[in-house]
């Protein structure tokens, strides 16, 4: 049932916003006054999607009830017990596979083979984890190029379900919110006070209410499609679609110079990342020969299933089958083959021209284990570099999309878009797509790539957090906070904390969208982004203030240690635990503690700037009385979503029994257990680096009580410290921020200018490019243009002469002559058509008589009788 229901439910959930998009695109102007019904349309669509997603969620948890995973060291001590658990899970997984009727047996055999292989490595920890439960299938075959199939396909596992629920829920809230937020677009003459014309007047334009929702719908479609996608090409397509939506939405106020620049910037910066991603795709294709995540059953040209000698369905193994093995970073055969061009050529040469293709491939296959065992002079296994290149390439795309250093500069500028956009696109979903893709492709990343990811993440999180301290624009604070939190996620993934990263992705989505929407509510009320002009707003806007407080507490990971906390408490602790685990793994170099320290420091800074923001905005006395007087609580349609999101921000990670369910199997439904179902197998075992002497510990090791207590206490202390500092500065006003600013003037300037990244990029890239462009332009104008102009003059002269000869004399002469003949004959025939009715009658008579006579003569007299 699930294999029937899930793809359809989720597929519908993907398509509904697309329908809404086209509806608004085609009929937006007809939807009420200034397209007011467009908002309703888009909201209804995303609400439908949400309902469908949660239905899918229900289907999933009934067919795959999550089982509790071992916690806090239980794993180490009760290995046998855990094994039983995992076996049960495996049984569930097999069951799910039987339903999908795909890759069970072959996959299972592969799993066994891998298990056997694993034992040689002496790590039997994950021998029983053959596969994660998932459903995959192809919907439509776009094209087939040799073995490569470009398809529209789906890959549904617990992560997909979680992402669907998260995206649709947040998007629904934001749609409702946006209906309130975008109200001022519902006018025929919208005056954009921030866009100024040359003559100093403001831009007047019609409201674009429905256009906004049109983009939102397209975005929702793209995002959901990205999550739904069953192959990397489809992911890439939706990836770009998400990018273009982001472009549209950032540039929504296109008349503003800053908005259009920001939109361009976001798009171009993302292209840089995508360039790397395309390289990654090439590696995947070259090495694995497929783009599909899951296994693809093979058919011949007539659509008949291909079977092996045992009558089993032959399948083209998908990416995950090839890389997501129980062996940590087991280099796939295809990669090895791709990395051995010389050896392959030698084999082909030896075999000679008579050997068939199948035999040749068999020959090569026989050589693969031998090649796999080989190492080059640096001791690196064959094909390993290819894996690194591919992994870094894919990660490049994620860097761009998730605004990681060095491609982070677009995200703060993207705050030019309307606040609901910032909430949905630039905090909760789109930027999370990069993290999602890293999580999805996790098995593909060898430890060296993970190190790159971790370094990128840790630098990003620290840098962005420091910038956020000095920012006064409320949305920019949140933007840098977003970058910082994304850095956290990348860090988590980079240090081997797959679950931690994914969980932080989900929890962060909720509280960050909440924070953005609260800030939007504030902006909507006071009509400014500057926190220096706010203050004391909690009296005027209680709903906004306290929901935002919830968001702040969630983001700093507030909670009672070991007992309960806001959602951020769980996810951030998990990240710290994993970085601590990495640090404490024996044999790892000492500098690996930078990950833990930066993460902890980042947590403190996060707490500081978040509460700085809250205090500056809501606490204390109003700093701008006029704006304060005009402030008001937002309409219900805006703060109701805030409350919903606040509830989720607080409790999404709680290990509550699933509501309304008496079934013991559903009692374990929570975010952790759900994500655990989608865990890539390799994270269950330690991963040693090949180029570097480091080991990435299995994630379960971070549940050891020593690590957990340490990490939790550090996290709590740093968060409380940051909170306290902010309170001292901005609530109690015991310390004057101005003093600190003067004291560390150069640091302040450094941070205020965002580490001079924009300037750096300007110097590094823009200037040279401009210079080269000017040079090229000069060459173009001076050399090529003159050459071409000269040629053109010659051709023109020739053409003039030739026109006279050929065109005027020959062609025109012929045409005109013919026309004259026709005209003359027309004039002659005109005499027949004189407009004399009686002559026409005579013509008819004579004509009829003539026809009769002709028929009598030639028709054999058959006319009469």
């Amino acid at each position, binding site marked *: 049932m699930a294999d029937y229901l899930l793809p359809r439910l989720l597929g519908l959930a993907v398509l509904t916003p697309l329908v809404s998009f086209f509806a608004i695109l085609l009929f937006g102007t007809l939807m009420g006054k200034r397209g007011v019904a467009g908002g309703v349309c888009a909201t209804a669509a995303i609400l439908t999607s949400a309902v469908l997603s949660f239905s899918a969620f229900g289907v999933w948890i009934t067919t795959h009830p999550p089982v509790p995973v071992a916690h806090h060291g239980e794993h180490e001590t009760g290995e046998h017990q855990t094994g039983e658990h995992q076996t049960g899970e495996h049984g569930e997984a097999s069951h799910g596979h039987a339903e999908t009727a795909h890759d069970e047996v072959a996959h299972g055999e592969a799993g066994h083979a891998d298990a056997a292989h694993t034992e040689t490595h002496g790590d039997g920890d994950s021998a029983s984890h053959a596969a994660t439960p998932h459903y995959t299938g192809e919907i439509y075959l776009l094209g087939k190029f040799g073995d490569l199939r470009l398809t529209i396909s789906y890959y549904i596992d617990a992560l997909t379900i979680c992402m669907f629920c998260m995206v649709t829920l947040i998007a629904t809230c934001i749609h409702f919110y946006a209906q309130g937020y975008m109200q001022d677009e519902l006018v025929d003459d919208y005056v954009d006070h921030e866009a100024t014309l040359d003559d100093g007047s403001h831009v007047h334009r019609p409201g674009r209410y429905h256009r906004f929702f049109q983009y939102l719908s397209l975005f929702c479609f793209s995002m959901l499609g990205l999550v739904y996608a069953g192959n990397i090409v489809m992911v890439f397509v939706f990836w770009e679609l998400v990018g273009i939506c982001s472009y549209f939405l950032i540039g929504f106020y296109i008349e503003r110079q800053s908005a259009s620049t920001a939109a361009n910037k976001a798009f171009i910066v993302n292209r840089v990342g995508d360039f790397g991603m395309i390289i990654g795709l090439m590696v995947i294709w070259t090495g694995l020969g497929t783009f599909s995540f899951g296994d693809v059953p093979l058919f011949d040209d007539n659509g008949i299933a291909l079977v092996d000698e045992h009558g089993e369905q032959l399948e083209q193994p998908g990416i995950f089958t090839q890389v997501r093995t129980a062996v940590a970073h087991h280099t796939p055969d295809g990669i090895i083959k791709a990395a051995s061009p010389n050896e392959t050529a030698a084999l082909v040469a030896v075999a000679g021209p008579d050997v068939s293709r199948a035999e040749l491939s068999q020959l090569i296959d026989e050589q693969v284990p031998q090649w796999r065992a080989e190492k080059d002079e640096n001791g690196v296994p064959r094909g390993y570099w290819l894996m690194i290149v591919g992994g870094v390439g894919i990660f490049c795309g994620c860097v761009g999309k998730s605004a990681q250093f060095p491609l982070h500069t677009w995200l703060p500028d993207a705050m030019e878009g309307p606040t609901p956009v910032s909430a949905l696109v630039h905090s909760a979903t789109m930027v999370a797509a990069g993290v999602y893709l890293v999580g999805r492709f996790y098995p593909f990343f060898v430890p060296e790539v993970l190190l790159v990811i971790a370094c990128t993440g840790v630098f990003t999180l620290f840098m962005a957090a420091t910038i956020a301290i000095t920012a006064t624009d409320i949305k920019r604070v949140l933007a840098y906070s977003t970058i910082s939190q994304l850095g956290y996620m990348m860090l988590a993934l980079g240090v081997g904390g797959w679950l931690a990263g994914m969980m932080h992705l989900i929890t962060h989505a909720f509280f960050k969208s909440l924070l953005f929407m609260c800030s939007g509510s504030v902006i909507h009320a006071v009509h400014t982004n500057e926190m220096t002009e706010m203050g004391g707003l909690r009296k005027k806007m209680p709903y906004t203030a306290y929901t935002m407080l919830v968001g702040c507490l969630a983001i700093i990971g507030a909670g009672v240690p070991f007992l309960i906390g806001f959602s951020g408490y769980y996810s951030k602790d998990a990240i710290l635990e994993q970085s601590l685990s990495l640090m404490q793994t024996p044999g790892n170099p000492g500098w690996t503690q930078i990950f833990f320290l930066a993460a902890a420091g980042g947590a403190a800074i996060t707490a500081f700037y978040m509460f700085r923001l809250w205090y500056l905005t809501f606490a204390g006395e109003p700093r701008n009385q006029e704006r304060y007087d005009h402030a008001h609580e937002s309409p219900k349609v805006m703060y109701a979503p805030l409350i919903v999101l606040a509830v989720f921000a607080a409790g999404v990670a709680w290990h509550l029994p699933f509501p309304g369910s008496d079934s013991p199997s559903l009692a374990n439904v929570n975010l952790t257990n759900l994500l655990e179902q989608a865990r890539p197998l390799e994270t269950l075992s330690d991963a040693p680096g090949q180029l570097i002497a480091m080991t990435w510990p299995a994630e379960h090791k971070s549940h050891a009580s020593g690590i957990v207590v340490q990490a939790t206490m550090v996290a709590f202390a740093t968060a409380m410290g940051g909170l306290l500092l902010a309170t001292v500065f901005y609530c109690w006003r015991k310390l004057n921020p101005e003093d600190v600013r003067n004291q560390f003037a150069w640091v302040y300037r450094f941070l205020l200018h965002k580490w001079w990244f924009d300037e750096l990029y300007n110097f590094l890239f823009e200037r040279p490019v401009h210079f080269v462009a000017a040079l090229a332009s000069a060459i173009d104008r001076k050399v090529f243009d003159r050459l071409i102009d000269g040629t053109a003059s010659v051709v023109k002269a020739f053409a003039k002469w030739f026109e006279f000869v050929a065109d005027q004399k020959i062609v025109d002469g012929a045409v005109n002559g013919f026309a004259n003949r026709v005209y003359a004959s027309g004039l002659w025939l005109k005499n027949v058509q*004189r407009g004399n*009715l*009686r002559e026409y009658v005579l013509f008819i008579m004579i004509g009829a008589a003539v026809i009769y006579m002709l028929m009598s003569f030639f028709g054999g007299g058959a006319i009469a009788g």
Partner: protein
Amino acid sequence: MNLLTDPITVSHYMVVGAVLFVVGLVCMGTKRNALGVLMGIELVLNGANINFIAFGSKYLRAETLGLDGQLIALFVIVLAAAEAAVALAIALNFYNNHSTIDVDRADDLKG
């Protein structure tokens, strides 16, 4: 052949029809008055009708068209009436516009 003593046949009717038909045609061809042309048309239709009736009459032929002849004649009559109404309206319009009903002067579209 004595017309008075011999029984008449379809051919006789056809001759009458032919006379009416040809007279109508010549009328259309020679009358300059639009209404004269119209009358010619009526004659033509009438001549055709006579043939239909004759072929449908069971007095004239053992094997006849039967009722079909009469029915077609009826339709012709009705449509002729319709045609006359429209043609007359056109003629009146023509008269209103040109102050004449001379069809020879209805040559505004002459090439």
